[in-house]
């Protein structure tokens, strides 16, 4: 695969910051690591990102605390705010940056969720985004009226119907529905608001939309999910994909090619969806400092206890009395699909197969348990001097592997500072990063076309 097969010479790097919340990759043990829940922390990260001309500030979601062996996981950062509420508060103290809420389609209803997203969009002047996820563990349902009511396969079915309903709600108000004069016959023009009725396998609802269109039409749709069904869902509905493929160029490029093919099949221009993989960026002055810093970051992220916990998820038992710097367990994992950690990425996969793979790796490279945990679960992204990383990110974007990156700082709230202070200027020098916000909406920042459902109403040339 060559770098030139999809060359885009003038392309620019788009940045989002993914504020992780629950995770083990934010180093909480460092003295500069602040509160993970106080508003001040979120304010600080959002303001730094805005100073760095980022497209978006992004919040994840998880609606149940993760567990391992029937106990709440106590090693990771735990506790996070409600995404839309927190972003509304940030909207009040920012001017330009996009505000993206991860919200699942399984434990929400369109009438309520779509309304709250629109509220955020209006309050922020058209800066809202929605990362529509499907939440693949039924166990989360124990916190909701419905319980864990959907199989994995049915989740995208519901998600698709959810998005169709959302679009109908957003399109339910005519563009000029609201009066522009206090002398008008009524506040909203008669007939300008349409009820939305849906009787489908997932919904039996009648909704009167309560909000007008925003400065960007409606919130930008993000998608995060990697299965074929997830990718088709993105090709049908999304403006942006928050992908897992932000570490290896070839893998990222192959993913982008796959998405472009799916978009063509869906009848959309192949650059209609922007791809922003999650990534981590480690910067230092010179090669030896880079190496030291990468080691320091990995050691902070993979404490002995965390490594034992990650391997324990696969083995299906508590390994906390073992030596993390010793070998993998000599005994086999329990031969059941992994469910020890509810909400972990490997749920549902065969632990025996994973163990075989990991043992082969440990043998081939002479790795300790902790080193195996690092080698198999970390997705480190980029490390280098600001100049080296700027060259590399520019190459990725200009050769069509991604449109940018969703950066997760490994320190919160200070970790974004060096990216904004050191890397952004290098990118700007290369002409691959904006020097000011050109527009005021998230859709404009990302260079997106108008919302999908409204395009047919616009003159053809505007669609591009």
């Amino acid at each position: 695969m060559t770098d030139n097969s999809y060359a885009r010479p003038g392309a620019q790097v788009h940045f989002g910051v993914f504020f992780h919340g629950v995770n083990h990759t934010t180093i909480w043990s460092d003295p500069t690591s602040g509160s993970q829940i106080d508003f001040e922390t979120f304010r600080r990260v959002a303001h730094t990102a805005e100073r760095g001309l980022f497209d978006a500030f992004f919040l994840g979601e998880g609606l149940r605390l993760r567990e391992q062996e029937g106990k709440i996981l106590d090693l990771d950062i735990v506790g996070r705010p409600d995404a839309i509420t927190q972003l509304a508060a940030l909207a009040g103290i920012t001017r330009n940056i996009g505000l993206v809420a991860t919200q699942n389609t399984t434990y929400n209803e369109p009438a309520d969720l779509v309304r709250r997203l629109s509220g955020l969009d209006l309050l922020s002047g058209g800066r809202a985004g929605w990362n529509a996820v499907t939440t693949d563990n039924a166990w989360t349902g124990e916190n909701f009226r419905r319980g864990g009511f959907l199989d994995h396969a049915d989740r995208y079915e519901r998600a698709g119907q959810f998005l169709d309903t959302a679009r109908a709600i957003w399109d339910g108000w005519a563009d000029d529905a609201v009066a522009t004069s206090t002398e008008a016959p009524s506040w909203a023009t008669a007939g300008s608001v349409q009820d939305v009725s849906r009787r489908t396998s997932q919904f039996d609802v009648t909704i009167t939309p309560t909000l007008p269109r925003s400065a960007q039409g409606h919130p930008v749709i993000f998608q995060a999910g990697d299965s074929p069904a997830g990718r088709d869902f993105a090709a049908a509905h999304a403006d942006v994909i928050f992908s897992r493929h932000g570490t290896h160029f070839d893998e990222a490029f192959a993913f982008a090619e796959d998405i472009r093919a799916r978009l063509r099949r869906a009848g959309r221009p192949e650059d209609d969806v922007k791809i922003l993989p999650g990534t981590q960026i480690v910067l230092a002055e010179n090669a030896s400092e880079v190496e030291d810093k990468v080691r320091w970051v990995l050691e902070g992220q993979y404490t002995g206890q965390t490594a034992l916990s990650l391997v324990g998820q696969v083995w299906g038992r508590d390994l906390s009395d073992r030596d993390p710097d010793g070998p993998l367990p000599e005994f086999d994992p329990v031969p059941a699909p992994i469910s020890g950690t509810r909400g972990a990425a490997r749920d549902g996969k065969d632990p025996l197969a994973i163990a075989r793979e990991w043992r082969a790796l440990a043998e081939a490279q002479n790795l300790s348990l902790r080193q195996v945990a690092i080698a198999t679960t970390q997705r480190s992204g980029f490390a280098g001097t600001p100049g080296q990383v700027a060259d590399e990110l520019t190459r990725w974007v200009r050769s069509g592997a991604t449109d940018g990156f969703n950066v997760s700082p490994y320190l919160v709230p200070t970790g974004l500072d060096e990216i904004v202070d050191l890397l952004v200027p290098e990118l700007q020098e290369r002409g691959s990063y904006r020097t000011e916000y050109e527009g005021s909406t998230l859709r404009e920042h990302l260079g997106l076309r108008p919302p999908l459902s409204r395009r047919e109403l616009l003159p053809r040339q505007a669609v591009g």
Partner: protein
Amino acid sequence: MSLHLGIELDGEGTHPEAWRRAAHTPDRLLTGRTVADRVAAAENAGFTFASFDDSLLPPGADGGPAGRIDAVNRAAFVAATTSTIGLVPVVGTTYAEPFHTSSQLATLDYASRGRGGWIAARDTDQRVAGALGRTEVTAPADVAREERDAIAVVRDLWDSWEDDAVIRDYATGRFVDRDRLHYIDFQGDAYSVKGPAIVPRPPQGQLVVFGFDGQTDPSEVDVVLVSGATAGDIADEAARAKDSGATLVFAELDVALGAATPAPSSGRLSFAGEATGLVDLLRALDSHVDGVRLHPAVVDEDLPVLARYVIPALLRAGVAHRPVPGSTLRSTLGLDRPVNRFRAERLEESSR
């Protein structure tokens, strides 16, 4: 005595034609600017709290505003740009997911540094059930049960993290002490909720919960809102609510101080006229209730008069007091920060 003053800031005001007298064109109602300007004006005036009405359904019939941004979003939007005023959204108790309600309100409390409240309101219109695809709840006993369950679940979730659950213990590598996180294991007739919350315990421990007289059990809330056609009715109702366990009682009061004619009857006490008359009425109510929530007929006409004439007179007379920067809504209202109930249970058990 001392009177806490609140103001309801939903829409353009209670008068059906209020939108015609707004200080902006209709299409500016649903913007951040309008929300922020009004709450800032209320804070500067010295109000204790602003409330935001809500429903999933459009607010206006008869040609008025047909749009409304949800109340939690509006309260959160001004949380970090204000410093003393309490922010009190309505969230329904009949059909909403209590898990979401609890997280949203706890987040509001973090963003406002402890100035969040909650008006727990029943959804009485069946179209709300239709919009959410839920089974209609119609029998009064069932509506009451849903409200009781919603308040119980939300409150338990706020307590499901003890205050010191985040320990950052470097030696053992533990970020939290899992013994200070609690499953709430709520089992109701209609649903169950496992817990714990995803948001740590909010700054106030428990947000200030408001309920309506004659609906919510006064012992489940911090503030009971009473309505009555006359000041005498309010006094009677307030006394009854106190007798049945209410902590604080606030009167609901419609006001029309601008040129507007009074809004059609809402069942609330109503005042129309000059500022001095309203000051007299509020001073009279002061001996019967702990606070008053004002419902302006036209926000953009009445709020300036309240700010310029009514509240200054009450402040001067020592009847009302400006909230102090840095204080929580609970402390402004003279309420203690509640002990976490799981911690209390744990301590009780260990002392047995």
